[in-house]
């Protein structure tokens, strides 16, 4: 078997294109993942037309809120391209310079102040469905964020007015009386007057007036509290169950390494077995020189042995971008080694069923790609029946088990690693048996 292994390594060394792909593929994947998770997402280019006159404010009681603040918040969420007019913004969108345009109308402040007709922004989109979706999502998020900040300022101004009405003081609004007494002080003043008033109709009216003033003050106080909660009526408190606490970036690392490991192992193992057939050497070998079992073991070890160092190097390289816990390297190795063997066993099974390297490679890619995608389908994103099918398929192939094992090894995510390792070992054995059967049937 060692001579066969030596022969395959020699062939691999002389297959420059394959060797280059084996080295470049994981390096490129690792770099892409690294850059993707270490860089902030690109902000969509949006043309913004601010037609509001400079210094325009929305007046709420004694305070004035600058409309420009609102525009600044919108600008911060996107890659803003200034446009002097709506026509220029439309031209920028049409020319593809901007994915969308936001027009802030001149009467925005007046409409907000009037509180009779809602203020409106105009948003224009262009680009394909995906770009539109990206721009729409970013703009809606930006507008929601800006609205939140703007409404918080208006709430604060409104709360200050209510406060003056309750406690008394100066309200420099047009037509407001000087030295306001404050609703909360009225019941006490009225109580002193009532005490001096003899029983009769006037005393009863004063008592009714005091009761109303007390009631109004209480309700205005409640209104102030309600106003404070309107901006964000429900806050989110996140609780993680079952110990799955993998950060998204390190999970992305695990996915990238598992995908690369799977492709390398499956393609190498399938190609290795298929090559023996393609060269017509299989019959010559298995007629007594090498047993079917030894041949499959050799191909499995070759694929796993070549892919394992690449996967380890890939993890270490991505570690430059993402903080990984290198004290868990022993667990990484265990997970990667078993995953590599299970993937290689799947590869030799594919190789045993095909007659040449091209067919084996095609079948390997056609099988591996959907397996990776299916294993990443989250529960609840598809119907229950379909998800059960996805789960069954993922259970029958090593990708999901490898992903779980590596996620546990790298991130300490649940469930316990031994369950995933056991699953991988069982799948590896099953695919090796299938490969042996396939190879013997061809005899």
């Amino acid at each position: 078997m060692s001579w066969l292994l030596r022969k395959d390594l020699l062939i691999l060394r002389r297959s420059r294109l394959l060797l280059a792909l084996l080295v470049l593929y994981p390096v490129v994947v690792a770099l892409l993942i690294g850059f993707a998770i270490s860089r902030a997402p690109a902000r969509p280019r949006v043309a913004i037309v601010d037609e509001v006159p400079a210094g325009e404010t929305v007046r709420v009681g004694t305070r004035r809120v600058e409309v420009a603040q609102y525009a600044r918040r919108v600008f911060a969420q996107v890659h803003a391209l200034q446009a002097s007019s709506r026509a220029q913004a439309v031209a920028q969108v049409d020319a593809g310079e901007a994915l969308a345009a936001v027009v802030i109308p001149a009467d925005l402040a007046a409409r907000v102040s009037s509180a009779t007709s809602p203020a409106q922004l105009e948003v224009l989109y262009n680009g394909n469905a995906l770009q539109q979706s990206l721009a729409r999502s970013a703009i809606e998020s930006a507008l929601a964020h800006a609205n939140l900040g703007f409404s918080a300022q208006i709430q604060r101004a409104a709360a200050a007015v209510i406060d003056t009405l309750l406690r008394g003081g100066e309200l420099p609004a047009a037509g407001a009386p000087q030295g306001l007494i404050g609703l909360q002080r009225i019941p006490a003043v009225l109580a002193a007057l009532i005490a001096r008033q003899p029983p009769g109709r006037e005393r009863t009216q004063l008592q009714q007036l005091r009761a109303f003033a007390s009631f109004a003050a209480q309700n205005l106080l409640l209104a102030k509290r309600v106003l404070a909660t309107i901006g964000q009526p429900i806050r989110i408190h996140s609780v993680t169950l079952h110990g799955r606490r993998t950060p998204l970036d390190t999970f992305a690392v695990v996915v990238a390494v598992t995908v690369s490991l799977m492709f390398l192992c499956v393609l190498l193992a399938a190609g290795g077995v298929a090559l023996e057939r393609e060269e017509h050497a299989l019959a010559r070998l298995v007629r007594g020189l090498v047993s079917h079992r030894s041949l499959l073991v050799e191909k499995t070890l070759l694929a796993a042995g070549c892919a394992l160092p690449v996967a380890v190097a890939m993890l270490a390289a991505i570690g430059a971008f993402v903080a990984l816990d290198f004290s868990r390297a022993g667990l990484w190795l265990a997970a990667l080694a078993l995953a590599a063997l299970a993937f290689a066993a799947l590869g030799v099974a594919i190789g045993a069923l095909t007659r040449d390297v091209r067919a084996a490679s095609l079948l390997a890619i056609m099988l591996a790609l959907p397996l990776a995608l299916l294993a990443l389908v989250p529960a609840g994103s598809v119907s229950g029946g379909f998800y059960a099918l996805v789960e069954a398929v993922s259970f029958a192939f090593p990708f999901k088990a490898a992903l779980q094992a590596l996620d546990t090894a790298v991130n300490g995510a649940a469930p316990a690693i031994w369950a995933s390792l056991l699953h991988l070992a069982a799948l590896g054995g099953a695919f090796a048996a299938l490969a042996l059967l396939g190879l013997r049937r061809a005899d």
Partner: protein
Amino acid sequence: MSAVLSARALAKRYGERGNVQQALGDVSFELAAGELVGVIGPNGAGKTTLLSILAGALAPSAGEVALAPAAAPATTPEGAAAAPRHAAARRIGWVPQQPALYRKLTVAENLELFARLERVADVHATVAAMLEQADLLARAHQLVGKLSGGSRQRVNVAIGLIGSPPALALDEPSAALDPDQRERLWRLLAQRTAAGTAVLFSTHNVSEVQRHASRVLVLDRGRLLFDGAPAALLAAGAEPEDGDLERALVRFVRERQRGEAGA
């Protein structure tokens, strides 16, 4: 002469129930040491199937192959015991119809690999000897993928001979060779038979059988129709002693087919 190799009631069937095809049926013969035996017959006669079974590359559906003097090794029906089949096969050199070589290895590396797998005692000396005998010394360090069809076939033959087996099974060994290379091949096989190796080869070139073989087996539709000297086949095909063996073969096979149809 004692038999080096015995084939007893060999049969090979393909397909499932209801659609069974008989590729080989009840074929028995013996090969003596130093014999050079040609296997001829029309396309689909079962020549490659017979040689593949003898070489252990294919399991027979029935019958067995025994190799003397070792008593035990025998080819047995499918599933019965794979190990003895392979043990016997290792002692029969095999040259398959299509060159079974690694294109990314050099000629010497291919020979060395199979010498190691055959557990040859002195690998380097054996490889050097084979390179010389197969006239491949000049191409020893060339990749097999860059060789001509004829050179590849010579490497293919050399690998079949590398373990110095007591019996050789060659499937159309002279195909793809030019006349000069063919002459070298027959000289090489003559040296082997002179040293006591039993050689069985299949061919479509009947004149090669007439010139080189001491015995001929005629197969048709999986059955062994004739086992004897080329001169006997000439007589059976109503040809004179210096007649055309190919014409005799065609006539003989046609007569047998006609006789069976009449019966």
